[in-house]
């Protein structure tokens, strides 16, 4: 069995291990100016006051807000199309059948 065919994860894993070892070695040498227990160890929040611990968590509804706002014209009709009414699901199914039939038959006639 050849190891290198169309895609070899082993190469990537080896590269990852090498990078990891180098990083850990570099990190273990440490930073000379760092002193434990001073404000160097504090959270930096762009100079603002750091919020309470529970306020720091970004909840999921805040994520990608700009993307949804920009894509509003795509999302509004798509979300509305998913009505949740069982009749609509059946209409889509029968409509798909009819469409597929028309396309297949017409394409064969042409």
């Amino acid at each position, binding site marked *: 069995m050849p190891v290198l065919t169309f895609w070899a994860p082993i190469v990537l894993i080896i590269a990852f291990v090498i990078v990891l070892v180098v990083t850990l070695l570099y990190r273990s040498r440490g930073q000379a100016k760092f002193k434990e227990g001073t404000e160097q160890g504090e959270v930096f929040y762009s100079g603002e006051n750091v919020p309470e611990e529970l306020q720091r968590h970004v909840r999921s509804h805040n994520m990608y807000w700009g993307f949804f706002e920009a894509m509003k014209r795509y999302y509004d009709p798509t*979300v509305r199309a*998913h*009505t*949740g*009414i*069982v*009749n609509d699901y*059946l*209409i889509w199914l*029968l409509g798909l059948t009819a469409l597929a039939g028309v396309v297949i038959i017409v394409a064969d006639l042409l």
Partner: protein
Amino acid sequence: MSQLVLNAPFVAVAALTCVACYIIMTQKNLIKIVMGVVILQGAVNLFLVTLGYRIGGVAPIYTETSGTLMVLPVPQALTLTNIVIGVSTTALMLALIVLIYRHTGETDAEKSRRMKG
């Protein structure tokens, strides 16, 4: 004339299919939708059974017939199987409608759409 008679079942199949499609696409009452599906099952069953009809054929319940041909009973077997399957799906659908009714007090498709989007 005989051509017309022989084709009558297929006309009935088409008519039943149209009725069933109309019902399941437009009726919002869940029980009516189930009725539509049952009519569609009836249409398909009629279609299968009609395919199995052979002019002058004999039912395959004798060991020997003189001169006439016996009918291969495959479509009849298919129809019976489909009837059994149809009964069980209908029963399960109605059971689920009962559960929906117990939860919400409604059997309206437009009211049972908690999940959307």
